[in-house]
């Protein structure tokens, strides 16, 4: 038997159901809130009801003597704890001191003011009501454009202009491009604030073990290692005695790509009370205190020749920062600037960002992080340009795409697009949707006074974030592969998947490389005491960067297995295939498991070879990857109510090679849902006093099953040359491609009325108002002629 080579099933590229699912569908997975420990205490945080106020005094006496209460902590006590950090360095960045509890002043509704710790969560909540805070309410500003106006209230008194940072980037010769243009189209475009709304709110369990000077911190995060480094620093602890565990994480979408005050605060509490403590964010807190996304006001200008050739793009970008910088806040609009030319062949750009403080919760990375805003901008501008030139929106795109023989392509913003064939997905999508026929139908419907629209977006995006020089905390990823003496395989990844399915895709990669069964592989992640250092899961990077680290670690092990196999077979010419090392001359073979055992038993070692089978690789990507695609949306508008019905949603995405089509489809669907959420329903609305009007699910409308269209998901495949897997990343593509396709579709539907732009979300009332006023205008114009 040992001489026969068994053909082992391969897994990469197949629709394999996920290996993480059994625990999730049976309710036996462990999220932070599920953790119980002996002696556990519970924390409730008292937060500011005002957007701006001075704290005159805080009386905690009643709360401290309430049943079950162990302590009440205020900002004056936690002053020694380091500030919540901003991870971005920029020359003129203004960084306000972001203490973990407010001291003398509060800056947004939800600002933490005190923490109550009790032996029972209900009692902690009761005691929080007994704290008396005397606030002197101050004027607040919640709108970034208003915050820039003269005389606006200063969010931070030391910076009366409310400017948090500015950033300028020039590429090519914009002034020349605009001077030579036949046509310039200008538009103000808003990308509204959004609430990431992961289904699991944030939560922390902190367990201080005094005898070991060890802090165990369980937190719902996308970046456990970075949390460890930073929280240890904030608390003055030793990094190797701080263990951060991200157990099951119930969604993040960028909102858990951060280090939050509560993570250090709970560590502090546990050290103080010498007991484990649990804090679980309420949904209300999640809306008011976890970062928001987007928050742009963009002023675009696009210059073109009469034939539709784009010559240059200018962008003035106002970024609503909120009251503080969180980990990556100032970086997000810079990603927008990098992406501003989209996938079009123009070498002239100019961008000016102004980041503005407001009395709101900070903005930071939310699915797409800067790229959806940029794509929305360029894709809206290209449609407006097409309308101005009376060109078909598909035609103007084909005309301006970077040609497929121009890769690698250096952009005006300093990126190098790795590979692309931008016309391919658009051609396929036009075909699938039946474009010509739809345009005919649209013409017929218009004669009947009906509003039907066809919207196209062709996007490119930045994935596999990213090379370290371009990423604040390092852009590499790590993998360790251990082959145990029995031949079972354990993978430790520095990525931290929380729904993306890498326990499955990474096992697929390893199973194929080693020729073992999927069931022989375990993927571990999310525990700093188990996994070598890692960066985490965000920016559509886990597979492209973390998977590549894994791939190279597997190559190291394969070489070692072959060495041992050759020694055991007494051959110099062997191959590893189908779970066997085979002597190419005699056909004799040794199963992988037997070789694994031999490497540990170490009775005999190949020359210059150590026992055991374990390899670790830290892989630094030479570049980002640049997926792309085309989304086409067909909408019908109810002329009476302004309601939008999506008749067709065709998505053709090119994310390079696909390891598991089932998972890729799921990523696209989920991404599209969040893009559609922004396009149609979602908006974080603050009133003039800085109160979050959409502070609960009663007012913040999310995509729900009955509101979602059927998504027709298709692909083209242009492998990335950046990594050996040829993968690009797919986590954010759906979101990035979606919103402009929807808005373009609705604007297209209403274009006979002279509508050229509508800001998101496209609420029925906005559409109705346009219908009402424009119909009147068109009617009265017609009457006077």
């Amino acid at each position, binding site marked *: 038997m040992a001489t026969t080579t068994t053909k082992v099933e391969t897994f990469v590229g197949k629709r394999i159901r996920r290996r993480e699912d059994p625990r999730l569908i049976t309710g036996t997975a462990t999220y932070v809130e599920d953790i119980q420990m002996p002696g556990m205490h519970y924390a409730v945080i008292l937060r500011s009801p005002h957007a701006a106020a001075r704290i005159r005094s805080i009386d905690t006496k009643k709360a401290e003597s309430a049943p079950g209460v162990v302590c009440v902590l205020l900002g004056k006590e936690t002053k020694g704890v380091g500030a919540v950090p901003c991870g971005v360095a920029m020359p003129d960045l203004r960084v306000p001191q972001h203490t973990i509890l407010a001291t003398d002043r509060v800056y947004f509704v939800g600002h933490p003011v005190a923490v109550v710790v009790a032996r029972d*969560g*209900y009692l902690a*909540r*009761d005691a929080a*009501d007994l704290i008396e805070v005397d606030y002197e309410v101050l004027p607040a500003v919640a709108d970034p454009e208003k915050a820039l106006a003269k005389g606006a209230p200063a969010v931070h008194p030391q910076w009366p202009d409310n400017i948090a940072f500015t950033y300028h980037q020039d590429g090519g010769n914009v002034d020349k491009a605009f001077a030579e243009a036949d046509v310039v189209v200008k538009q103000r475009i808003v990308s509204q604030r959004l609430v990431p709304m992961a289904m699991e709110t944030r939560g922390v369990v902190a367990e201080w073990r005094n005898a070991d000077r060890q802090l165990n911190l369980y937190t719902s995060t996308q970046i456990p290692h970075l949390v460890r480094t930073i929280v240890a620093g904030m608390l003055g602890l030793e990094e190797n005695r701080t263990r951060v565990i991200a157990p099951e994480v119930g969604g993040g979408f960028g909102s858990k790509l951060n280090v939050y005050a509560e993570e250090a605060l709970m560590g502090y509490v546990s050290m103080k009370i010498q007991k484990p403590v649990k804090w679980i964010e*309420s*949904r*209300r807190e999640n809306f008011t205190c976890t970062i928001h996304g987007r928050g742009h006001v963009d002023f675009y200008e696009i210059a073109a020749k009469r034939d539709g050739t784009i010559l240059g793009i200018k962008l003035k970008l106002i970024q609503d920062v909120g009251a503080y910088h969180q980990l990556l806040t100032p970086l997000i609009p810079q990603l927008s600037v990098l992406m501003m030319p989209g996938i079009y062949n123009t070498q002239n750009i100019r961008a000016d960002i102004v980041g503005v403080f407001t009395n709101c919760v900070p903005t930071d990375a939310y699915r797409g992080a800067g790229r959806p805003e940029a794509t929305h901008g360029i894709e809206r501008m290209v449609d407006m340009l097409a309308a101005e030139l009376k060109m078909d929106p598909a035609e103007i795109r084909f005309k301006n795409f970077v040609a497929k023989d121009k890769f690698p392509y250096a952009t005006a913003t300093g990126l190098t697009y790795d590979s692309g064939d931008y016309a391919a997905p658009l051609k396929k999508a036009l075909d699938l949707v039946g474009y010509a026929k739809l345009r005919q139908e649209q013409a017929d419907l218009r004669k009947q006074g009906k509003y039907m629209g066809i919207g196209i977006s062709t996007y490119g995006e930045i994935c596999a974030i990213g090379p370290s020089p371009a990423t604040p905390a390092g852009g590499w990823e790590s993998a360790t592969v251990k082959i145990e003496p029995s031949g079972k395989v354990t993978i430790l990844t520095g990525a931290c998947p929380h729904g993306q399915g890498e326990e499955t895709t990474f096992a697929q990669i390893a199973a194929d490389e080693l020729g073992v069964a999927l069931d022989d592989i375990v993927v571990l992640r999310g525990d700093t005491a188990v996994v070598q250092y890692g960066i985490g899961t965000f920016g559509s990077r886990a597979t492209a960067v973390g998977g590549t680290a894994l791939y190279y670690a597997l190559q190291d092990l394969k070489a070692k297995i072959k060495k041992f196999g050759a020694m055991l077979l007494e051959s110099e010419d062997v191959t590893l295939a189908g779970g066997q090392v085979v002597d190419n001359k005699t056909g004799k073979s040794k199963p992988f498991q037997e070789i694994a055992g031999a490497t540990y038993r170490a009775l005999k070692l190949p020359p210059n070879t150590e026992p055991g089978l374990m390899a670790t690789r830290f892989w630094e990507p030479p570049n980002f990857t640049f997926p792309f695609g085309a989304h086409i949306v067909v909408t019908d508008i109810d002329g*009476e*109510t302004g309601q939008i019905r999506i008749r067709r949603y065709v998505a053709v995405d090119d994310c390079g090679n696909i390891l598991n089509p089932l998972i890729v489809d799921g990523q696209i669907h989920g991404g599209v849902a969040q893009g559609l959420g922004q396009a149609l*329903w979602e908006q974080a*609305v603050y009133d003039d006093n800085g109160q979050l*009007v*959409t502070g609960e*699910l*009663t*007012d*913040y*409308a*999310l995509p*729900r099953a009955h*509101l979602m269209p059927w998504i027709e998901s298709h692909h083209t495949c242009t492998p990335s040359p950046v990594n050996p897997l040829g993968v690009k990343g797919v986590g954010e593509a759906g979101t990035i491609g979606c919103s402009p396709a929807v808005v373009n579709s609705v604007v297209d539907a209403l274009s006979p009325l002279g509508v050229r732009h509508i800001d998101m979300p496209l*609420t*029925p*009332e906005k559409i*109705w*108002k346009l219908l009402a006023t424009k119909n009147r205008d068109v009617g009265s114009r017609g009457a006077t002629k």
Partner: protein
Amino acid sequence: MIAQKFEYTAPKSLDEALHLLASGAKPLAGGMSLIPMMKLRLASPEHLVDLRTIQDLNFIREAGGQLHIGATASHYEIESSALLRQKCPLLTETAAAIGDVQVRNMGTIGGSVAHADPAADYPAALQALEAKFVLKGAKSERTVSAADFFVDAFATALEPGEILSEVIVPIDDARTGTSYQKMVQPASGFAIVGLAARVRVNAGKVSFVRIGVTGLSNHAYRASGAEKTFEGKTSSPANIQAAAALVAQGVDANSDLHASADFRRHLAVVHAARALKTALSRIA
């Protein structure tokens, strides 16, 4: 997300419940509105009396040529009642439009009506049906019409110590058509506006019209101006439109993030026309 402490009683009889309510306790039915408010500490009753444990309040039956629905009949029980589907389809259609499956399984008609949320669905249908509400106190029992019951936002004709024990609606014959048309607030599932229509046609003319409106103003009401305009006319599209145009007349319309007052008025007119048209199409 944790309520303040309170006392809880689950009485077996209505008398026992009324006795407790007379001393200041608050009734709890499905809790779909009250419990979220308690969790957010926007409501903090000291004593809750659970009405769901009282068998006598849970029924759907026909008697005396009318339909009687007990206060704790759930939206699902109403939605799936064969009796109501046959004899009062407007109520089943409205119940099916409330919230979501879980809310309909737990929420009750009595709880919803007594809470009198200006955006609730039932009140439109109950106005159009000219429903009667039986209000019981420890020492009293009275019947109040829908027209008199809804007083203001979250305010009804219920006196302290009284509960709504029963809803009575008429049985319409096959010559009556009904419809409930709703513009949904996409976050909460409540009505931005909800229009219930109930029409009869006799010898080619509209002989009877009732239109109930919810969501538009501080409480649900009957659009009597629109009703009067439509009665005696043919059911032509122009006459439907003319009647619908009057449903928001003289009403101080609500305005919020989800719809301005002007948009709400407009939606009320659109949905009134749709409700009338659909109701007419359903006349056997």
